[in-house]
């Protein structure tokens, strides 16, 4: 187990000039010993580059990687003692499930009795114990990926376990189970886990802290709560949440707030910088109000969807689109009707130049 400190940048080009030449812009980051982390972002954001630097598959073009204060920047994954789980199962088809799980331990000459015990524990956690003597070849893709996960987790002495989109090939129902298993295993074993994904639900439910990345930049590192409630950057607001945060043009001047062309009372207790702002409000916090209610904005409904557990309303508001997630008990307006929506509240965020200011 190790604490991991990063202070680095990476470019795949020999003489990087502008920001665009960097796969990873300069970043400083610490992964606590025993913590569960996720690197989250769209394709090309740099998350896999970052993972490869942590594992030792890639040497950063500048800066250092430290494990427990020791510089490991130029050491191999073996020397760093890293376990890895990939997108697709990496297992030996001709071996039994038990032999597959035991393999990383056998390689390190762990005593037989200890191997049996550890393989038993991991198999039980992943509900593979009924299959221990079966050959891996006959198992489903899901089961094989479980073996891959088990092999990643079987050694108690690793510095960290790194996962690269490990649940991509898994069906939604089983994803639930496996995400849960991973979380419980983390709770029991307290391994340092780093998990790369583009799926926010996976990242937020799995990790204690999530690093949100875009275009080579780590824009925010925080808990699910922080990323959802107080996105530090409009990108985080947009990327986290499904659908993401609504943004409306706003303007603050002399204690007054203009949103989507209407004057509203400035929210109490908030200090807003003067000038052009973006108001950010999550669909979960947009509420329906009665017509002409103070603080409410009139929007024209363009779509009303029954999404099962909620109603999702899409509406046009002075040239902007706004989405509202309503409880199924609410009387949802119909397409073409005017819905009066409130967007100001304790959960509303304000951005200037894409950065959170209030």
């Amino acid at each position, binding site marked *: 187990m190790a604490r991991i400190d990063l202070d680095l940048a990476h470019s795949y080009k020999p003489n990087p000039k502008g920001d665009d030449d960097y796969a990873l812009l300069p970043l400083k980051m610490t992964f606590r010993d025993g913590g569960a982390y996720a690197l989250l972002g769209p394709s090309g954001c740099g998350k896999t580059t970052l993972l490869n630097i942590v594992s030792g598959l890639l040497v950063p073009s500048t800066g250092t990687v430290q494990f427990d204060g020791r510089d490991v920047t130029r050491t191999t994954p073996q020397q760093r003692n890293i376990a890895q789980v990939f997108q697709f199962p990496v297992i030996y088809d001709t071996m039994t499930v038990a032999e597959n799980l035991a393999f990383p331990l056998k390689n390190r000459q762990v005593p037989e009795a200890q191997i049996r015990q550890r393989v038993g524990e991991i198999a039980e956690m992943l509900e593979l114990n009924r299959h221990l003597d079966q050959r891996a070849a006959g198992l489903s893709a899901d089961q094989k990926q479980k073996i891959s996960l088990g092999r990643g987790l079987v050694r108690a002495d690793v510095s960290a376990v790194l996962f690269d989109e490990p649940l991509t090939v898994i069906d939604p129902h089983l994803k639930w189970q496996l995400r849960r298993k991973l979380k419980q295993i983390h709770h029991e074993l307290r391994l340092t886990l780093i998990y790369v994904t583009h799926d926010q639900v996976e990242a937020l439910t799995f990790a204690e802290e999530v690093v949100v990345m875009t275009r080579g930049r780590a824009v925010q590192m925080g808990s699910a709560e922080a990323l959802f409630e107080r996105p530090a950057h409009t990108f985080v607001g947009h990327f986290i949440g499904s659908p993401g945060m609504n943004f409306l043009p706003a303007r603050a001047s002399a204690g007054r707030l203009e949103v989507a062309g209407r004057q509203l009372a400035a929210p109490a207790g908030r200090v807003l910088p003067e000038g052009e702002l973006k108001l950010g409000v999550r669909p979960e916090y947009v509420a329906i109000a009665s017509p002409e209610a103070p603080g409410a904005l009139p929007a024209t409904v363009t779509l009303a969807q029954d999404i099962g557990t909620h109603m999702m309303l899409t509406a046009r508001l002075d040239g902007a689109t706004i989405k509202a997630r309503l*409880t199924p008990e609410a009387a949802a307006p119909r397409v073409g009707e005017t819905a009066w929506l409130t967007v100001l509240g304790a959960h509303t965020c304000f951005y200037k130049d894409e950065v959170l200011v209030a």
Partner: protein
Amino acid sequence: MELKLERVDKQVGASTHLYPLDLALQSQAVTVLLGATQAGKTSLMRLMAGLDKPSHGRVTVDGADVTGVPVRERNVAMVYQQFINYPSMTVADNIGSPLKLRGDKNVAQRVRELAARLHIDMFLDRLPAELSGGQQQRVALARALAKGAPLMLLDEPLVNLDYKLREELREELTLLFASGDSTVVYATTEPAEALLLGGYTAVMDAGELLQYGPTASVFHAPKSLRVARAFSDPPMNLIAADAASLGVHLRAGPVLSIPLPAAASRSLTLGVRASALRVTARGGDVTLSGTVELAEISGSDTFVHVDTPVGELVAQLTGVHRFDLGAPITLHLDPAMAYVFDEQGNLLVAPARKN
């Protein structure tokens, strides 16, 4: 167009890929084929397209028998999981190819229109390999739309794209489908995607078509446990129960006052969606006490896994809630929000809907 499948099945060697089924697709609407991998979605689509011939049964288009008519002789557009484009053609030529093939005029203008609708108009002169995965799939979609075929089949078209991109493209597709007059079939493994697409849903499981109807109706009144399982994310909580004089008696738990039909079996399963469980009390609730096993915060929701005497339950709570693992917790449920299934797994009672 009206596509009908009558008692079609598909045997491949000794294994059955599709059991006999009847399906009349809703014309000029989206039909979602929902099911896990191996449920039979792709097999069914291939029969619809004419890529495969059913082992038995008939396929008709607008009343005419097309069973065994190959795909080349049908007017069908298809989009697959993998981004399939002509690698040596520019984006513009890719999109325009079905138009040129049938000798249309104004090809360039039509291509520009479609490219603009799919937000790829700035890439018209590039080759597909120079685009990101999401953009490549947009090209494939634009080409399928250009064909203007009365039947459009999409087999998990967004599955290889990033989560956020999937969200954007899904929304655009929903609008495109709504404004077009094609009959669209869209396969997915994700219940949430089916709900967002709306339209009609055919739920499939292990080679069987289980239920077909308006998407929201199927979701709110799944006719069997199998449908409920396939069409819930997170999975529906299922609790073993018995019929009692006052309603439904949970084994090792309380009695819920739910009027049962006279013919109800004695042994029942109570189904409760995760979103129906609350931590705040309302009048008429029953309570289920337990301990917190796990709390997963997705931001907009918190999923709490609770160990209770009636089994393990998952509750979906709106917003961010903090729970200590192992802490005691009481879940509240309005009996009117519960589903009841009989011994055979058939739906007996579904929550009443307002609309």
